[in-house]
């Protein structure tokens, strides 16, 4: 049995779990305690098989379903295997967490929720396998549809319905763009298998058009800047395990699609493509991180941070495209590895953060940062595991987030050798922006952890918050250990990623990295740059131990508990702490032009002072509402056609007849 058959069995397994759940529609306990863990184990199996498949030769299979002339072609090559690893790992952790999380049906009957969840997973896995236009489109939109129904789990809330509608609409428009992209790629051969698309030699114009459609289509699903408005609405609306899956894994299928089209089907193409991706990625990163620092609702904060991380990944892809266009395959491999490592790292720490918010939401029923705080005392397990995610999220050294940031900054440093002088000027600015983005991400993560878990609890009921249960802990622990392990042992990850870069850009980092053993990461030679996370953690631990040793030898050994000092002001209530708006206030002031601010500040003579700050996205008002108004105008124009008078209708028929007759006579 070759790998691809095992994967198909796992996907079939997921579907049977879903259908099985239909028959036990209302048995919450059975579904949560039996079906979800089974789904998790299948996810783990998928990750294992995919891991092994990355290191083996590509395999092809054909399913009988599909159009009569075009059955489903499937292909498992290192690129799809890598993304299947991401899907499998994400599925395992999230399913384990869901086993403990889903106590009430969240609005829809639990059986239906389980079906949609597993169809969602199966569709994502099949998207990575699809090897022809039709199969890809069917699996792509089934994924969008399944996630739509998951987002509308508790559809009684009007905001959830609005968010879900916007999500499916943007996803559908994106899918249309992808269909057009495949249409252009097939270049009049009518054969939609990727093998044929790969063989086509398109001229610069048509390949650029295809690339444009691909960026639009996959950007709509990934949340690149102009098409990102659905993400901060849809992710918070979904139940937490689903928003974890959507943020950590579904966005990566869009990255997979972009890689498949740009690198595999279009063979890299022109250099300015990299520039476009660089620009879009940077804009998304900056906008995402700035908006995430000013949010007052925890899941929206994480959703915007997903946009930021996707922006960083796409910046890495852009750089790889530029290098590839100038023929520097090793540097292209460096940039591409940075992007792919970030894909894996983000999948782990973002799932951890979203599942953390899920645990908090379940324990307190609150999602607004203004009503949380001090949960580290009542929910230690969740707090300390989420701390690992926060450190990884802000790209701090021993953790996973830092490795990809380190590789990305390294790849920026070597762009000086580019022949194009304009590009040489531009690259330092982009490097500076990336540094700023990562720093701001740290700011957002500190705000998230500090306001939710530290300080005084802002509501009484927070004291009675119960900690995560058994299954939930396994899920959180899996992602925490994953974030730490990815951070500490980057060399095996580089080996995995190297298999993908070999196929896409022709060279990889494996040899140079292996020269220095599996502890030290020195992608381009030790003398240029090297980073050994294990030694780094060892150094910090040694220093801390040294400090403890010194303190223990010198100190008097007593410790007294007393009310906090607070400069002598006694009786500090929880409301005197910094609120989420307060913590974000400096950013709001510095990055004023980014937001669309509506502020009503109470006047001194106001009997009932009311303070409200509403931060909105300029793009929503600048781009989306005008389009809506335009379509309405067109609809009203067309409406004139049906005015109700029968003589006018007869006139239409009469005039059409006369015109057609004239045409025939010419």
């Amino acid at each position: 049995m070759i790998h691809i058959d095992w994967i198909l069995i796992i996907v079939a397994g997921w579907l049977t779990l879903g259908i099985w759940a239909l028959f036990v529609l209302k048995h919450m306990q059975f579904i949560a305690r039996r079906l979800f863990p089974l789904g998790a184990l299948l996810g783990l199996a998928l990750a294992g098989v995919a891991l092994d498949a990355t290191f083996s030769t590509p395999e092809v299979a054909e399913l009988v379903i599909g159009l009569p002339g075009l059955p489903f072609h499937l292909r498992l090559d290192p690129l799809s295997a890598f993304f299947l690893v991401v899907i499998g790992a994400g599925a395992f952790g999230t399913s384990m967490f869901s086993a403990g999380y889903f106590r009430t049906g969240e609005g829809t009957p639990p059986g239906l929720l389980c079906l949609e969840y597993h169809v969602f997973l199966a569709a994502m896995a099949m998207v990575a396998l699809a090897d022809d236009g039709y199969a890809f489109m069917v699996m792509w939109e089934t994924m969008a549809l399944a996630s739509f129904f998951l987002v509308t789990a508790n559809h009684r809330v009007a905001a959830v319905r609005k968010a879900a509608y916007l999500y499916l609409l943007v996803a559908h428009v994106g899918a249309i763009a992808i269909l057009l992209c495949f249409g252009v790629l097939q270049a009049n051969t009518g054969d939609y298998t990727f093998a044929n698309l790969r063989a086509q030699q398109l001229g610069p114009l048509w390949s650029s058009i295809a690339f444009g459609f691909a960026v639009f289509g996959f950007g709509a699903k990934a949340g690149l800047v102009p098409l990102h408005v659905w993400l901060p609405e849809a992710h918070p609306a979904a139940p937490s395990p689903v928003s974890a899956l959507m943020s950590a894994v579904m966005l990566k299928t869009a990255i997979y699609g972009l890689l498949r089209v740009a690198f595999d089907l279009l063979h890299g193409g022109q250099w300015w493509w990299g520039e476009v991706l660089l620009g879009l990625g940077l804009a998304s990163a900056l906008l995402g991180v700035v908006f995430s620092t000013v949010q007052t609702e925890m899941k929206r904060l994480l959703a915007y941070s997903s946009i930021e991380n996707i922006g960083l990944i796409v910046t890495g892809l852009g750089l790889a495209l530029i290098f590839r266009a100038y023929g520097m395959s090793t540097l292209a491999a460096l940039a591409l590895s940075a992007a792919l490592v970030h894909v894996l790292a983000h999948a782990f720490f973002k799932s951890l953060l979203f599942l953390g918010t899920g645990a908090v939401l379940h324990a307190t029923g609150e999602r607004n940062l203004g009503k949380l705080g001090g949960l580290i005392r009542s929910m230690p397990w969740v707090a300390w595991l989420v701390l690992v995610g926060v450190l990884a999220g802000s790209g701090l050294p021993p953790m996973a987030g830092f490795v990809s940031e380190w590789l990305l900054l390294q790849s920026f440093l070597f762009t000086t050798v580019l022949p194009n002088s304009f590009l040489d000027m531009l690259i330092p600015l982009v490097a500076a922006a990336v540094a700023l983005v990562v720093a701001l991400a740290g700011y957002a993560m500190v705000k998230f952890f500090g306001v939710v878990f530290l300080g005084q609890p802002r509501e009484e009921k927070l004291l009675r918050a119960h900690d995560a249960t058994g299954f939930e802990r396994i899920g959180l622990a899996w992602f925490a250990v994953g974030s730490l392990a990815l951070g500490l042992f980057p060399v095996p990850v580089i080996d995995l990623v190297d298999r993908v870069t070999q196929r896409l850009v022709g060279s990889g980092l494996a040899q140079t990295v292996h020269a220095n053993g599996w502890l030290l990461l020195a992608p381009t030679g030790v003398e240029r740059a090297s980073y050994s996370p294990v030694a780094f953690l060892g150094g910090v631990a040694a220093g801390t131990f040294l400090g403890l040793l010194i303190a223990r030898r010198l100190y008097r050994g007593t410790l007294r508990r007393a009310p906090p000092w607070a400069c002598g002001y006694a009786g500090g209530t929880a409301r005197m702490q910094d609120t989420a708006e307060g913590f974000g206030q400096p950013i709001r002031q510095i990055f004023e032009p980014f937001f669309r601010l509506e502020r009503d500040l109470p006047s001194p003579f106001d009997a009932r002072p009311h303070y409200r700050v509403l931060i909105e996205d300029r793009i929503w008002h600048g781009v989306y509402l005008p389009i809506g108004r335009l379509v309405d105008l067109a609809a009203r124009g067309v409406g004139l056609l049906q005015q109700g008078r029968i003589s006018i209708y007869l006139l239409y028929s009469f005039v059409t007849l006369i015109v057609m007759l004239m045409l025939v006579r010419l």
Partner: protein
Amino acid sequence: MRALLGQSINLYAAFLLIVSFAMISQRRILSLVHLYTTQGVTLVLATVTVAYLTNQPHLFASAAITFVLKVVLIPILLHRVIDRLDVRWDVEPLINIPTTMLIGIVLVVFAFNLALPIAQLSSSIARSTLGIALACVLLSFMMMIVRAKAIPQVIGFLAMENGLFFAATSATNGMPMIVELGIALDVLVGVLILGVFMFQIREQFDSLDIRHLERLREE
């Protein structure tokens, strides 16, 4: 004698065109019904002539059906509807009569040069009548558009059927029997249903003005 009869078909065609023009410029409903009846009579004569010339027995049967239907049955029905609903007042055209006449002439010219190439090819006796038949159809179509009342619209619809029937008999020496029967049956049932509708509209809106029927529209 046969040549004379051949020309008589052209005469009937010309007479039919004149009646169509008259119907457009007519103001009173009763005279509209009378004109419709005369059209029916012309049709019967034309069919008989063609039947005689091409000695096809089934055309005599179809002429008989046309006579019963379009000269006897439908006019009686229209008269009864007019009496029961006492709609005697004259017809309100949406645009004034002179302009309709002008458009009518343009339509006739268009129909003629449209039918010209076909006329040369068709082998039947009365080739040129096809243009006139098409003109009658377009004229009655235009009459339906400009009339604001239900009954003139119905009469326009029936005149259009007459034009088609005349085209069928004159240009192609008559369609197969089954088809003729089917068309006649459809026209009869159509008229019955229209009668029922007119009673319902009258009862619903207590007026037969089409302008009441304009509620279903897009904002």
